[in-house]
Each structure stands twice: as C-alpha cells, then as structure tokens.
C-alpha cells in the first residue's frame, strides 16, 4: 500500500476495537473510540483497509472493518468540506481498493463494492480516470469468484444510468466506459459461454458461471439503456445469438430445487427478456432478430411450469410480447386467427387461472391478497401480466380478441354452471371479462372508458348479481369477492338507481365472516360513496341514511376485532370506509356523534401504543376532523362537548409524545380554536400556548407545519392577548429560526404572513424593521431561488392586504432601514421574479399588490421611484400576459428538501388533514378581476396626475400599451384607449 505510517500496533488497536464492537457490553465505548480514531488519524481509512486484507485477522473483525469502511465513505467522501479526507488519502484509497476488492471473501467484497460505488458516484470519471481499467484488468479467464466481484461493482456503478436524463456529461461518461469496457466485457461473455459449455456436467461451477452470466446481462442492459453503442450495433448478431442461446438453454443441473425461489438460470432468462424488450422499444429498426425472439419467448411461455419460481420470468416474457404486439410494424406477426387463438389459449388462459399458491394467500394472508389484488402492487404477477398482454393485443385486434376471449368466457361459465365445484372457471371468466372490457386499469374513480363490444351491465345482472344475492356466508368466498370487485370496477357504468339497489347487498356483506369478503365490501362501499355526478357527490346524506348506523356498527365491530394495536390498524380499508360514511352523512350524525367519537377515541387509544399503519392513522384523524367540521360550526355546545371528549386523549398523545400523531393533534386543535367565536382566547388554549413556544416541539420537522397552522389560529383568534402576554417575541423568534433553515423557510414566511395580517399596526411598528432586516440578511447570506420567490410573495401579500396604511406602509418600512431600500428590493427581486410566482391565488395577490403599489402609493410617485413606475407596470402586464413557467423553478433545491425529508423518516412527516385544513384565503377576494381593477385604478390615477398617461405613452413598451388598451376596453367598453 502506498501510504506508509500505519504501524502494526495501530492496526492491532483498531482490530481490538472492532472486535469489541461485536460484543454488546463493550460496543458503545468501542464505537465512540473508533469515532475518535477516525477524527484524529487521517490514515484511519487506510489502516482499516489494511486490516481487512490481513488474512490472519478474524473473519468477523474483517467484516466489521469492511462495514465500518463503507460507512466511513458514506459519511465523509462527498462533503462540501473537502478537507475532511486529505487528497493523498483519497488517492491512496482509489489506488488500492479495487485490488483489495477482488482478493477478499464475498461478504466483505459486497461492502467494499458498495464503497467503490459511493466513491465512483462522486469521483468517476473525472477524478478516477483509471477505474474502468482497474476493474477490467482484474477480470480473469479462470477465477470467476473474482470476476463476479468486479462485475457486481461495475453494475452497481453503471446502473444509475438507467434512471438519469440524457445529458452531455452522462453521455460522455457512458462513452468513456464503453471505450474501455466493451472489449473485456464481450470477451468475458464469450469466455463464460465457453465455460458453461465446457463444464455442463459440473453443478457447482455452473452455478458460479450462471451468476457471472446474470451479471453480464445486467451490465448489458446498463450499457445499452440510454442509447445503443456502436460496439453493440456492430456485434449485434453475435450478442443476440448468445442471448438467444441462453433464453432456450436448459440443464437439469441448474433446475432450482425450490418451488418458489427463482434460480440463476430463471433470472438470466428474465434479464434477457428485459434486454430484448428494451431493444424492441428503442432500437427496433436495428434489431433484426426480433421475430426469432418472439417465437422463442412464445414457445417458452407455452412450456413453462406454474410454480411460483417462474413468475418473474413469465411476467417479463409477457411484457416482451406485449411490447411487440403493440408495434405497428410487428403486429402482423400476430395477425392470424390461429396465432391469436393460440396466444389466448396457451398463454393468457393458464396464467389467468387461480393457482393453489394464490388460494393459500387468500386464506392465510388476506390483507396481502387484497393489497396485491386491488392496488396494482402486483405488477409482476402472472394475472396482471396476462391482463396487460390481453390489453396490448387489443391495441390492434380489439374485435378478434373480444370474440376469442368471449368464447372462453362462455365456455368457463358453462363449466361452472354445470358443476359449481368448477368455481375457478367462473373466477377466471370474470377476470377475463374485466381484461377485455377495460383498456386500462382504474382504481380510484372506476371506469368510464370501456370496450363497446362488451355489455358489462347486462353481464352483471346475468352472471354476477346472483352471487351477491346469495346468503352472505354461502358459496365460494372467492366468487363473492369477484362479484364485489366487478361492481367496484364497473361502478361508473351503473346508474344511480342500479347502484342504490345493490348498495344494501354490499352493506350485508360487511357481516361476512370472510376477511377478504367483508373488506372488499367496505372498499366498494367507500368508492361508491366517493362517486360524483355533475360535480356533486352521487350519494348524499339522505341516500345513506337508512344504512348509516348498520354501516358504522359493522365497520367498528370489524376494526375493533383486532386484538393488538398492529392487527387493529392493519386494515385501513375499513377505517377509510368509516371516514367516507362520516363525510357523506355530514351533520346527520349529530344524534349519535358522541358514540362515534367514543369509538374513535378507543381506537386512537389503542393505536397510540404503536402507530404502525400511517394510512389507518390518517383516516382516524380525518374522521375526527370531519366530525368537528360538520357538527361544531356555529354550535358552541357541540364544540364544548367535542373539546371535553378530545382533550383527554389528545393530552395523552402529547404527553407520551406519540410523534406520528402530534401533528394531527395540532391540526385538530387549530380547527377547534378557529371555531370559537368568543372575543377572548379560551383559557384552555391560553394555557397551552407557552408550551407551543418551547424549542423542543419545533425540533421535529413533522410538527412545524402543524404548529405554524396552530399559531395562525391563535393570531387570528386573539392577537391582542398574545401581545399582552409578551408572547409575540417568542413567536418572532420562531419565525427567525424557521427562515434560517432552507427546509423550513416557507413555514417561516407563512407565519410572518399571519403576523402582519393579525398584529395591529402599533405593535408591528416596533418589529417590522427588524423583521425585514432578517429577511434581507437571509437573502444576502444564503439566497435560494425558492426563498427569493417566497420573499416576493410575502412582500406582495403585505401590500395586497392593504392594512396598516396601505402600500406606503410597506415602502416606508423598507426605506426606514436604509434609504431607497425598497427600490433595490423592487429591482433585485420583485420585478425580475414576479412572473415566476405560481398558483392562481398567489399570482392574483401579486397582481393586486402591484396595482395598489402603482396607484395607491404616494411614495411611488416621488422622485426616487417615479422612474421605476413604468417598469413595474410592464412587469405587471407581463405577469398577466406572458406564459407562466409552471414547472419547478428550482428542482434541485426542492429535491434537496424532499430527500432531506425522506431521510428523516424516523421523524414524523407532516400529513395534512383535509378536513381540518386552513381554508385557502384569498385576501384579495373582493377584487374579482385584476385586469379590470388595474384599468379602473389607472384611470382614477390619471385623473389626479395627468402626466401618468404621458408616462405610459413614452415609457411603456408598445406591446404593453397594446395590452393595456385591452384592459381599458374590458373595464369600460365604450371608452377610448389610453393611447387615444
């Protein structure tokens, strides 16, 4: 190793520490000592690497060392502060790590491979030019364990290409790799092929070679994913011949013994299917062997077994055929009655049929069955792939496929009707019908686009309804589920009377003893209640009144049957149905609202012990929020009752710091507080406020939006009390803390909007200078695009609300800090950024703010500002007329925050409650049409100041004058334009 200075004693110390980390008793201390060592010795990583290479070190210590090294790289390699690892150490690591990688056992190799990937992510290719040569020089015609290590590393470096956009740096990197990697890659591919042929009788070696081949296939995909490299174009025939060889390859020695787990050969074949799908999709014009692969894959699909280990291969194979059959230029390969019939019969039917493994899942893991079945999380299942294949074939052969599949449906139904023990035939028939009737899949709103050749409503009455009408616990539960799911899928095809007629049947099925059946009933009910017609809900409180009580009793019974917090919260579909029933019934619930709240409280108490299912939790709180919303408005008595019932459980959540629930609790609190109408803040809220202003609550990022929302409610309700209790300054402190953070600055600005809106002028006067200085300082020290826009948004809001003395108050507030400061703000931020403001309301607020500034400010007409006046007007017109940029203004930055939040999943993330959300307020609601308002105000202004008209004429760009004329006509159709 190139960097000296690592003596044996140091290595021994480190080895000892690593060993101690493996013992629970000594772990903590050893870890902290390792941290110290890491901080003190710059050659620490080199020493660790040396330790890993020493074969006389204990294997467990070597492994611990490799883990430590990987984490070290993860923590330190990519940092703004480059000095964390000196460059000579960096270079030394890059010099030796590939050598070490190929010489260590597999478990260690995996860790080092990840470390190399992490380093490469930041350094390759610019600062690690010889990485590819280093890797490819390690490829060995004999040592395949070593090859696999190299290939694994290469794959983990290259695979990120698959997800990146086409850019010059990316293409340069790929070309750089291609230049050095293609030849060794291709040699190894041929070599591996030769080895597999040579050692066809040696199981152990075959396994290794197959693993190599699999990695080679993954690399094949990596190298081809963005565009087809000339090397592959030139060697297409040879490569594809090899791929073809292995998609048909079979060797009894490679048969996987398990029924469920795919072996390396199945994985290789799946990978090959992915490659040919890629080639079909992107390089079809060069891919001359495509028809051959179609034939081969078709043959493969007709001969493959039904075991679960083949599931992936089957779905990848069907995905390939689906891609081909959709292509205009290839669909003729399928264009014959025989071919289509064969495809349906030999590929679609067998894979549509319920298998024993599926039945087992239905019985033993019902919730998993439901999730896979209904949410499309089953993208790799056979049924899904077969359905997709049917739909793909219908792209060009709608009529034929409908007819062919129709024949099978009739036949299957006949078989079932002759003998009900053939229920799987009916199950398949229903699934087939769904596939041909729907060009896509729909979950949320049901379908409105369907195949005209199929009458799904008639089919329902004839074949599905009887299953629903039969006693709840009679017959095959799978068919019950099929029936409910059919209704669910085609609900948009049904009329309201039709749905209303079957609704009681669904309610009945909530009492089914079968988990899947009653859950599906809840799902269907929930979705039917969510249907809209002509922009109103299809079912209203009167429609469900006869069923509400039974629905809720049954749903709560099913939910509360869960004996542990986890099992109780497992089935979020049931809870969602509760929520939807409450949403639909609205204030009809008032007679038994207490009872419902009791149930919710009980559930809340249970799940607080271990909040395991975020969706379930969310629906619980939405339900509470909805009850509050529909029952407490203008009803102080009800409000009082709710507070009495909710405060207890909520307090427990706060005291026990159930982090997942705290943000919800604050949102409900905000909602309740805003519903109070008395002049003064109720004591209970008054008492809570000091705790809200303590820093620890604000540490959790999930709490921040909820707390800002809560403070908004306080300020809105009674800002005077807050000021009197000297609580405004801590709130300003919070504002300051929030705007210092790039992740939270938007909440800081939100809080500031509440402050300038509800704090009266006298108090605001004391602070506004400091507040604005803080914003400007933040803009100076770490300006981000997002914050700059947020700032513009705030200033506009401040002007638009028209309090404290109108626009001049804002201008003056800035200018008191420094002479002509507002002029700078205008030129540096507002004028250039105005147009980037997004969202209908925000843009309107900005427009109104600019109109007020132009026409209701004395200062703007003063000597300092008058030259800017036409520029502001031009910017305003531009805001009105030029296209908005609606994409993310700074995706990078947003991403930063986004990932930042994702990283912190151990912390609560904020989930907004719809029912408890702050109403979106347009502070300019009284002005409906900004363009007209501008025209009117300009007209008014020019009466008072005749030189305004002249300024418009001489200083405004012609296009702008043209638009201005239009506004004038809008405002007053009879009047002449301004230029007239």
């Amino acid at each position, binding site marked *: 190793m190139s960097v000296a200075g690592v003596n044996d004693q140091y290595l021994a110390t480190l080895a000892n520490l690593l060993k101690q980390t493996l013992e629970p008793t000594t772990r903590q201390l050893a870890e902290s000592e390792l941290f110290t060592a890491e901080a003190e010795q710059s050659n620490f990583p080199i020493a660790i690497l040396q330790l890993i290479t020493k074969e006389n070190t204990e294997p467990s210590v070597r492994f611990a060392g490799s883990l430590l090294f990987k984490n070290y790289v993860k923590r330190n390699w990519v940092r703004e502060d480059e000095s964390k690892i000196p460059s000579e150490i960096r270079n030394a690591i890059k010099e030796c790590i590939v050598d070490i990688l190929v010489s260590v056992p597999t478990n260690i190799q995996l860790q080092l491979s990840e470390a190399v990937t992490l380093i490469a992510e930041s350094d390759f290719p610019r600062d690690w030019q010889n990485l590819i040569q280093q890797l490819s020089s390690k490829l060995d015609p004999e040592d395949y364990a070593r090859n696999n290590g190299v290939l694994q590393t290469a794959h983990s470096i290259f695979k990120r290409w*698959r*997800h*990146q*956009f*086409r850019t*010059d740096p990316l*293409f340069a990197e790929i070309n750089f790799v291609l230049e050095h990697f293609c030849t060794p890659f291709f040699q190894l591919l041929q070599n591996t092929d030769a080895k597999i042929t040579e050692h066809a009788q040696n199981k152990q070696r075959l396994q290794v070679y197959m693993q190599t081949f699999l990695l080679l296939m993954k690399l094949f995909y990596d190298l081809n994913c963005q565009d087809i*490299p000339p090397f592959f174009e030139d060697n297409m025939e040879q490569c594809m011949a090899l791929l073809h060889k292995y998609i048909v390859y079979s060797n009894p020695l490679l048969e996987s013994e398990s029924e469920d787990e795919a072996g390396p050969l199945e994985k290789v074949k799946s990978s090959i299917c992915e490659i040919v799908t*890629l080639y079909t*999709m*992107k390089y*079809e014009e060069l891919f001359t062997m495509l028809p051959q692969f179609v034939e081969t894959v078709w043959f493969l699909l007709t001969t493959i077994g039904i075991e679960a280990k083949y599931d992936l291969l089957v779905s990848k194979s069907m995905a390939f055929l689906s891609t081909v059959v959709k*292509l*205009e*230029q290839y669909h003729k390969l399928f264009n014959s009655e025989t071919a289509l019939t064969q495809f349906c019969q030999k590929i679609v039917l067998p894979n549509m049929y319920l298998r024993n493994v599926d039945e087992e899942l239905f019985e033993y893991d019902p919730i998993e069955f439901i999730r896979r079945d209904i949410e499309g999380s089953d*993208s790799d299942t056979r049924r899904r792939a077969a359905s997709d294949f049917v739909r793909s074939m219908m792209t060009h052969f709608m009529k034929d496929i409908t007819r062919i599949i129709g024949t099978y449906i009739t036949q299957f139904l006949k078989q079932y009707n002759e003998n009900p023990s053939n229920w799987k035939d009916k199950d398949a028939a229903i699934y087939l019908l769904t596939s041909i009737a729907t*060009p*896509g*899949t*729909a*979950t949320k*709103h049901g379908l*409105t686009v369907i195949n005209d050749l199929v009458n799904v409503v008639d089919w329902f009455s004839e074949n599905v309804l009887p299953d629903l009408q039969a006693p709840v616990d009679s017959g095959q539960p799978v068919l019950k589920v099929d029936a409910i799911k059919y209704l669910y899928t085609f609900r948009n095809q049904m009329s309201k009377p039709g749905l209303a007629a079957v609704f009681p049947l669904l309610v009945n099925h909530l009492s089914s003893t079968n988990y899947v059946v009653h859950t599906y009933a809840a799902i269907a009910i929930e979705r039917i209640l*969510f249907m809209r017609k*002509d*922009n109103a809900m299809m079912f209203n409180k009167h429609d469900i009144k006869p069923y509400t009580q039974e629905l809720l009793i049954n749903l709560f019974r099913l939910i509360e049957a869960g004996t542990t917090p986890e099992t109780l919260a497992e089935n979020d579909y049931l809870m969602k149905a509760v929520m939807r029933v409450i949403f639909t019934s609205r204030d009809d619930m008032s007679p038994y609202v207490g009872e419902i709240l009791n149930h919710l409280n009980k559930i809340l108490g249970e799940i607080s012990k271990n909040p395991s299912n975020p969706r379930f939790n969310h629906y619980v709180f939405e339900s509470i929020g909805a009850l509050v*919303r529909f029952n407490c*408005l203008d009803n102080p008595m009800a409000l009082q009752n709710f507070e009495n019932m909710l405060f207890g459980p909520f307090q427990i959540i706060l005291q026990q710091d159930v982090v997942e629930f705290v943000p919800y609790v604050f949102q409900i609190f905000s909602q309740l507080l*805003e519903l109070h109408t008395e002049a003064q803040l109720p004591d209970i809220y008054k008492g809570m406020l000091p705790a809200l202003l303590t820093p620890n609550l604000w540490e959790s990022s999930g709490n921040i939006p909820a707390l800002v929302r809560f403070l908004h409610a306080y300020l809105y309700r009674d800002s005077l009390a807050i000021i009197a209790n000297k609580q405004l300054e801590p709130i300003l*402190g*919070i504002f*300051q*803390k929030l705007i210092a953070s790039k992740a939270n600055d938007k909440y800081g600005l939100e809080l500031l909007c509440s402050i300038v809106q509800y704090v*009266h002028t*006298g108090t605001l006067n*004391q*602070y506004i200078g400091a507040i604005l200085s803080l914003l400007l300082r933040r803009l100076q020290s770490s300006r981000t695009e997002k914050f700059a826009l947020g700032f513009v948004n705030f200033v506009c809001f401040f002007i638009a609300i028209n309090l404290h003395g109108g626009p001049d108050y804002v201008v003056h507030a800035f200018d008191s800090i420094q002479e002509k400061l507002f002029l700078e703000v205008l030129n540096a931020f507002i004028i250039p950024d105005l147009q980037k403001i997004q969202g*209908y309301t925000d843009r309107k607020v900005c427009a109104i703010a600019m109109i007020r500034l132009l026409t209701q400010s004395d200062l703007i007409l003063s000597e300092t500002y008058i030259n800017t006046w036409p520029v502001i007007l*031009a*910017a305003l017109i*531009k805001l009105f*007329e*030029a*296209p*908005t940029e*609606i*994409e*993310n203004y700074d995706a990078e930055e947003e991403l930063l925050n*986004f990932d930042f939040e994702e990283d912190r999943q151990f912390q609560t993330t904020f989930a907004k409650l*719809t*029912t408890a*959300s702050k*109403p*979106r*307020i347009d*502070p300019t609601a009284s002005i409906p049409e900004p363009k007209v308002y501008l025209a009117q105000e300009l007209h008014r202004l020019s009466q008072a100041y005749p030189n305004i008209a002249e300024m418009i004429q001489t*200083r405004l*760009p*012609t296009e*702008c004058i043209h638009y201005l004329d239009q506004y004038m006509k809008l405002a007053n159709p009879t009047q002449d334009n301004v230029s007239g």
Partner: protein
Amino acid sequence: MNKKQERKKIFKNRYALKTEELFQMRQKLQIEIRRQDREKFLVARHGICTSNTSSNIGLGEISLHNTSSISQQLYQLIEGLNSNCVEIQLISLSKFRKLLSRERIISIQEIIDNYAIPIFVQFLLSKNVDLRYEAAWILSNISTGSTEQIQVIINAGVLPIFTELLNKTTDMRLQNHILWALGNIAIDNPQFRELILREGNLGSSCQCILDANVQPCSVLRTMSWTLSSIYRGHIADSDWSQISSTFPILIQLINLKDDEILYNVCWALSYLGDNNHIEDVINLGVSPHLVNLMVHVNNEVQTAALHCVRSIVSGNDSQRQVIIDCGILTVLKSLLVSTKSSIRKDACFILSQITTGNIDQIEHVIHVGLISLAINLMVNSDFQTQRETCYAICNAIRRCYNRPELTICIVRQGCIQPLVNMLNYMDNDIICVVLKAINAILQLEKTLAVENNCKNQCTLLIEEIGGMDRITEFQNHENGEIRLLAYNIIDKYSAEEDEGYESELNQRFDLNGQNKQFNYQSSNSIDNVEIIGVKI
C-alpha cells in the same frame, strides 16, 4: 438611431413579453452514444477519391507485385520524379497516384517517409498542366490521411499554392482536386480550416469558378462540398469575413437546382445553423428554398434540407417565424404522413422545436391541424418518432398555459391517452416531459374547475387509463426529478379533497371585518428587537 430610441430599445428588450429565460428548451446534446447519420455522410466523402474515369494519361504498365520490393520501386519512382524529362516525370507521377489511390499499394506514410511531398508540391508550380493536375490529385489523396500526415503537406507550403492556383487556373480538373484537398484538410480540424481561411480569397476564387460554369458540373459539386466542410465546427470571429464572403456563392449554388449541390449546400447551411449562425442563414434569404427542399423528390436532398431546417427552428421565436412564414406548417402536414419513417421523425423533431415557440406560433400550429397528426404518430410509429412527437405535444401544452382554450383544443384531440402510454417507455426524459405536460393540464383544469364549477375530466381520464397508478409508482423512481414531479401531481390532483367543505368555511373568515377590531396603540421601544431568538 437617436438616444431616446436606443434607450427604448434596451428597455424593450429587457421587459419584452418573452419568457425564453424561463422556458427551458430541450437540451441540445453535443455528445451522442449512437453512431450518427452525419458521420456516415462525412466518411463517405472523406475517403480516397478513386475516380479514374477522367484520367486520360496513358499509364505505363506497372507491376509492383512481382519481384522488387516496394521501397525499391518507390525509390525508382522518386528518381523518375527528379528526372529532367517531363514525360518521365509525368509517368512517375501517375504511377504514384495509381498506386496510392486505385490500388492502395503504397501508403500515404510511405510517401511521406520517402520525402516525396515537397516534390509533389513543387510540381504544383510546374508550367505543365498535366504535371500540376497529377500532383494536385496525389495531394488531394494525401489530404485524406491522418492529422499528422496532413500537417506534413501543410508544412510543405501547399496551402498558399493551392489558393493561388485556384484563383488563377481555369483547368477544371485541377480546380476539382484542389477543392477536394482543401475540403479534406478543413474537415480534419478547425486549426487547419483556419489556416485555409487565412490564405484568403476563398470567396472570390469560388466566384470565378462559378462564373465560368453556368451549368451544374463536377467542379461545382465539389465546391459545394468543400464549402460545407469549411463551415463545419465553431467559426472564430477572425475568420468570419472570409466565411461570409462565400455566402453569395451559396445562394447562386442553390439556384442551380442540382441534387448533389443542393445536398451539400443544405449541409453547409446546417453546419452554420448548428454553430449559432442561424441569423446569418436567415439573412441569406434562402429560407423559402429550404422549406421547398423539404419535399424534394431526391431523398438525400430532402434529408439534408430537413437537417438544415431543424437547426434553424431551434433558434429563437423570430427566426422560427421566418420559417413559418415560408409555409413550413403546411409542408410538415404532408411530411408527418410520409411513408418514410426517418422523414416523419425529422418532421416531428422540427415540429417539437416550433412548439417551443410563442403562443401565436403554437396557435398557428393548432389551426393548421398538425396536432392531431402528431398525436396519431405518437400512437402509431417507432419509438424515435414517438419520442419527438411527444416532445412536440408536451412543449405545446406547456406553452399554452395562458390560453386555456388552446390547451383544451389539444386535449380534445385526444392527447392524454397517448401521453400516458408514453409513461410506459423506459426513457427518463420522456417520462419527465410527459409528467410536466400532465401537470400543466391538471393545473389548468383545476383552475378552470374552480372558476367555472365543472368537474375534472382529465384527472378522471388519466385515472381511468391507469395513468395515476403509473405516476404513483414514479413516486419511488430512482430519478429525483421524476419522483418529485410525480409526488406533486399525486399530491395536488389525486388528493381526495372535497372542495365543497372549503367554500363553506371560507365565509367565516372575514378579513376586513376582523381587522376593524384592532386597537391601535404603541408600546415597547424598538430595542426589543435584539431579543428575537437565535442568530442566523
């Protein structure tokens, strides 16, 4: 221009109603992975000129394949060159040329190694036309060599001699070979091209040749190619006057209506356009020609014209407008239904550039009926074409933001289903633009739904055809930007909010009424500001 006007112009530029700075154009890639068509074009013309039909010099039979070694024969040939007898010199020269070009028996390097280059260059100055011609032919072959080899002939002083000869001679054969040689040298690298330009006179020499030939002929074809290779790559400011001196030639060449010349001129103009000289191409006034050539019967000319127009429409709005005024939109209509897929692809690319234009241009595109054709192609064509049409449609949608009626018009023509289908392709750029377009549609729809109290048809449709499921999956995409876009769409448009509730509560917040309750009073002094919490 007086001062006021000048100021006004600056003012205008600064706040003109444009949003180029905001609208991210599709990034133009400089680096490609796949082998490019254009490379093929260059390779085809770069190769050793093997034309021998024009040769009328009797060749003595050469039999290099027998006994004597190549170096020995080379030695003999060089001796022949050094002879005093023109006849022998000529025979030796043509043997050289034959060995080099037709039979490829000796390599360029062997010639260089035997110090023959200066001798050839000397022959260029000979009074004998045939000697000059043979020498030029040999040198033009040598100019197909490597950069180092070309450097040798440049060092031998070939460039000033070529330029002078080109200026003086009327021998078309000689002109032809000089032009070949200059083209080959220029194409090798920008420095060589600069050296040629620095010799000057390119424009006037070409003009002379042009004046002498009213009809299309071999030398004019070569000249057009030479010019195209001179325009290739970045052009330094210092060379610009030389380059622009050749522009009148291009205009005259294009009027000759010869397929090969048209082909070369189109490429020449493409190179100019690709190197940020779109405005100069426009100023040549050839745009109507180019648009006409887009439907030329000769496939190669058509392709070259398409390339050229591609580069022009990637310019700014006013440059695009010039092309639109030449009637390109009607031409595109016919190209989008061409039977050749490469033509359809190029046409779609051009359309995708036009739809980055201003709103009037997009309105024009819609009114001509290009959108439905493009949507049709997005459904039924190969991936490359689908990709381009997808860009065309998505750009248009995002540009139409302020004109809901235009967006609605595009949506009504059935773009949603094909766009959602594009989400199934394994192409991250496409996924990204489609998500942005969907976002734009949904955002508009939401605004309209709020304003006009109507329902969200598009959201529903996207949901029904499986789009929302797909977008939901993208929330786990490895690509951060795609993840974020998907997250935003799901968050904003798929959330099950019930707007009905909100309007109900809105009435309770009476902002203005609330504020009247405030008592205005002044209190603490401004010193308190210091206690505002933590430092930034």
